[in-house]
């Protein structure tokens, strides 16, 4: 030990300056990234303190976590590896309580005293809690059911609370950006939402009353109730939230309250430590605290020239200046304040706002266009031929150009109307062309125009490719439009076809609903007809064929024109291709029930064709694996059974338990119902595979709670129907759709749900994504209560598909195409699947 210790002492001491950062949020981590980018690790030994017990994450994305679009794990900016790789000591979950600026020490709540040579304060801000009666318990904690919307923990707490079935209504206090995001996010959990806003109109910090009125219409159209000029005076409840009390208005009953009424800088450490604090920690143009040579501050906890910022872009600019000074990279670097522009999708509505909301001087020009019925509002304020303010709602086409014109004071066209509409004025490309190389296009990941153009010139010419390489647009996503424009500009019009995420299939630039209505309007009944009519230049696209074939079959049923080249090989030969190019055959065995005769026949076939493996599947079927393609028709013929659907994006199997037939506990005839469901819906195409189950009692031996559609018999002769469950790559317990009295209604509602899913889900979107995206409340309303009056239409469409069913294995005697079952296997020996 002694030897070791003395050897340790003999290594040269680390002479680097000790850099301590208080705060591990977006500002603190960004400042450190900027310092590292300037070679700061050579000069500094870095220690970071973070109040939250995590690495650092993108707070902007919390609304996506709330809505379920993003997993909490997906919003982390720097993993713990990043800290390790850069030699940064991270104290996560540790709060700094005091700074001794004379001894140059920080004291943290774990009892540690950490010396520093340079200190950065990046403590950010927290939700501002209004003075409202009943907000806190006598113990000083937030009342159960009250949430701030600031941290991962807040967000996850909100999600789990909102998902409890008896929590149906929420009130969001605050109708700004954050409040509207919270409202929309809560809706996705099937919660009814009221927004209570003290201002006269929504988002009054970003827009004037006219824009606010249009936004209100759009938000209300989403089913969110809005109360403006309303002040919350008390939270009602006592043990947990039961409602809110408003001044001069009736109380609102609710189970959940989200406070999104602004933010307040975290300045306690600075105050306690004797640093200058006004509205926030005061800093100079070098981001340095006045009279302190070695203490800097950055982000939302900072007041610069009287301004406090609550947006991300200023924070990036501040971090760069701070790093220039801390590392000495550019001692002349100064921060002169930020022009703030917001560009977001707020509650599903495109919102952009920058600078002034309205004209201030007699000479200011003001352009306004308002079309409330479409939710479109545009207002631009021009001074001395420069844009000094703009508000755009519901139409983001001109946003990229206007933002750049505002940021950089670009000269404007004589014909002002072209600022509002594309009328042959300066196109968006002109705006992109005039951007400097250093201009930051993606603020979340700090990607410059030059980084994007270099990537494109390096040969990467798809939007998604550039996004993958540079990470541009992979943060909050608000800059995607601009990234696309820069890519197009840099590629000089040779951007490769890009599988835009919102298209149903990559080769046809339409979302599903638009695609379906175009198909219907034009009577397109084959995949080649869809490409000819709707694809760019009429070009067919291999990646799109299977999705279109499935969609057309669903829409036209028996009137679909079947072009076999549009199918995946599995659907051409009605079997599942395996890794060695052979196929697997699964005979139909409805409900998992078989017979000695069937088993004998299967065994004989397995012998006759030297089937290398006979295996039971997870769905209670027998799988004959390793069948060469050319043997398929003979195998089917000798089996003499219909297709069992182990391939394709379609309805597959219904797993069952024995139910009341034999089981001591069975309360319903699950086997019979499973067979009925499987017989009715066999082979029905859908956007992704559908696996079902019926259990005869709540013991759930058929695992019905984790199926796309699962049915459980409960006591009293009733049946519960669950949808959206999964136990594969994702694990999810299905949501209860309805509890019904008879098996006939189970079959009806299951079919109606499947038809709704077929019509509305994205290609390859499993029900475990679809159900939470659309919301169980909505599905229940449409499917069980027929709130939209479409139930009969769904039933009818499903019936058409059922009626047009033919057993694909009948093609064994009459191949659909020449050489349908001819081998495609080369003669060489392939990598073989091991045979047991």
């Amino acid at each position, binding site marked *: 030990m002694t030897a070791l210790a003395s050897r340790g002492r003999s290594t040269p001491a680390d002479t680097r300056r000790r850099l301590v950062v208080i705060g591990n949020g977006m500002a603190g981590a960004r400042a450190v990234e900027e310092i590292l980018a300037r070679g700061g690790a050579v000069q500094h030994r870095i220690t970071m303190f973070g109040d939250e017990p995590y690495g650092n994450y993108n707070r902007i994305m919390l609304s996506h976590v709330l809505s379920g679009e993003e997993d909490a794990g997906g919003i982390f900016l720097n993993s713990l590896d990043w800290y390790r790789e850069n030699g940064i000591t991270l104290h996560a979950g540790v709060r700094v309580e005091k700074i001794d600026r004379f001894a140059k020490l920080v004291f943290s709540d774990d009892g540690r005293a950490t010396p520093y040579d340079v200190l950065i304060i990046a403590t950010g801000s927290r939700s501002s809690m209004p003075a409202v009666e009943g907000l806190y318990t006598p113990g000083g904690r937030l009342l159960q059911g009250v949430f701030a919307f600031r941290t991962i923990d807040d967000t996850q707490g909100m999600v789990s609370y909102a998902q409890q079935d008896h929590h149906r209504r929420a009130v969001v206090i605050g109708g700004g950006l954050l409040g509207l995001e919270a409202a929309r996010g809560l809706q996705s959990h099937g919660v009814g939402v009221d927004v209570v806003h003290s201002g006269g109109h929504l988002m009054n910090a970003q827009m004037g009353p006219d824009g606010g009125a249009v936004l209100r219409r759009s938000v209300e159209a989403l089913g969110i109730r809005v109360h403006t000029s309303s002040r919350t005076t008390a939270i009602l409840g006592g043990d947990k939230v039961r409602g809110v009390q408003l001044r001069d208005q009736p109380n609102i009953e609710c189970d959940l309250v989200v406070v999104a009424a602004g933010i307040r800088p975290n300045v306690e450490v600075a105050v306690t430590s004797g640093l200058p604090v006004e509205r926030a920690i005061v800093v100079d143009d070098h981001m340095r605290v006045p009279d302190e040579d070695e203490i800097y501050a950055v982000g939302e906890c900072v007041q610069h020239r009287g301004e406090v910022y609550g947006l991300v872009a200023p924070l990036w600019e501040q971090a760069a200046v701070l790093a220039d000074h801390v590392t000495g990279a550019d001692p002349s670097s100064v921060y002169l304040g930020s022009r703030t522009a917001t560009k977001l999708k707020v509650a599903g509505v495109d919102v952009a706002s920058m600078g002034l909301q309205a004209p201030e001087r007699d000479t200011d020009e003001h352009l306004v266009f308002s079309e409330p019925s479409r939710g479109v509002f545009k207002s631009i304020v021009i001074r001395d031929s420069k844009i000094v303010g703009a508000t755009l709602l519901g139409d983001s086409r001109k946003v990229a150009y206007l933002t750049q014109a505002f940021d950089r004071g670009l000269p404007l066209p004589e014909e002002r109307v072209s600022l509002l509409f594309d009328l042959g004025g300066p196109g968006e490309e002109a705006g992109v062309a005039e951007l400097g190389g250093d201009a930051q296009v993606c603020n979340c990941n700090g990607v410059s125009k030059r980084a994007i153009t270099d990537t494109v010139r390096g040969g990467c010419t798809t939007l998604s490719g550039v996004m993958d390489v540079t990470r541009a647009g992979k943060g909050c996503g608000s800059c995607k439009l601009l990234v696309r424009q820069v890519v197009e500009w840099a590629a000089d019009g040779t951007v490769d076809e890009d599988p835009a995420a919102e298209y149903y299939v990559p*080769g046809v630039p339409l979302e599903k609903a638009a695609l379906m209505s175009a198909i219907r309007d034009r009577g397109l009944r084959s995949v*080649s007809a869809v490409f000819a009519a709707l694809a760019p230049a009429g*070009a*067919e*696209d*291999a*990646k799109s*064929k*299977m999705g279109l074939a499935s969609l057309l079959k669903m829409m036209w049923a028996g009137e679909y024109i079947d*072009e*076999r*080249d*549009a199918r*995946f*090989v*599995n659907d*051409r030969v009605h079997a599942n*291709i395996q*890794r*060695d*190019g052979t196929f697997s055959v699964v005979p139909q065995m409805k409900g998992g029930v078989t017979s000695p005769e069937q088993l004998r026949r299967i065994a004989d076939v397995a012998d006759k064709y030297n089937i290398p493996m006979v295996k039971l599947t997870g769905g209670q079927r027998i799988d004959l694996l390793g069948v060469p*393609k050319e043997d398929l028709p003979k195998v089917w013929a000798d089996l003499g059974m219909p297709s069992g659907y182990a391939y394709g994006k379609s309805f597959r199997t219904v797993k069952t338990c024995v139910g009341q037939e034999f089981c001591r506990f069975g309360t319903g005839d699950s086997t019979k119902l499973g067979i009925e469901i499987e017989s009715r819906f066999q082979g029905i195409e859908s956007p992704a595979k559908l696996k079902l189950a019926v259990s005869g009692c709540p013991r759930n031996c058929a695992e019905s709670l984790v199926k796309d559609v699962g049915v459980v018999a409960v006591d009293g002769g009733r049946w519960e129907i669950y949808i959206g469950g999964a136990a594969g790559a994702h694990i999810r317990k299905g949501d209860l759709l309805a509890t019904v009295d008879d098996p006939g209604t189970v079959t009806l509602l299951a079919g109606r749900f499947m038809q709704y899913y077929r019509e509305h889900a994205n290609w390859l979107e499993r029900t475990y994504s679809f159900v939470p995206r659309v919301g169980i409340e909505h599905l229940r309303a449409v499917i069980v209560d027929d709130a939209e009056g479409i139930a009969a239409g769904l039933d009818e469409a499903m019936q058409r598909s059922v009626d047009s069913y033919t057993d694909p294995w009948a093609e064994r005697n009459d191949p659909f*195409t*020449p*050489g349908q079952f*001819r*081998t*495609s*296997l*080369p*003669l*060489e020996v*392939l*990598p073989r699947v091991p045979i047991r």
Partner: protein
Amino acid sequence: MSAGLSGGGLHVLGPVDQIPVGEGRAYGVAGEQIAVFRLRDGSLRAVSALCPHKGGPIADGTIDRNVVMCPLHQHAFDLETGCSTTGAGPLRSYPVFADGSQNVVVRLP
């Protein structure tokens, strides 16, 4: 099915009609395995039949005017050049055409 010539030269593989429009079929030609595709515009393409990634049967792939996608892992290959557009190794490509009596003719080097 091949013309029986050994090595290089022209090989007649039989009627074009053996290949459904938009699909591919595999042929053994002078010891080589070749996937021949008949595009929707009627033209033909020929590439080697074995995916260099994991040995997938290319003739079972899905095509459009430009590429074929291997059915196993969806690697795509340019039908003219055989080059992969998804980072796999290339397929070999072969000149191929339909002769006066609508037979598939492929030329081996």
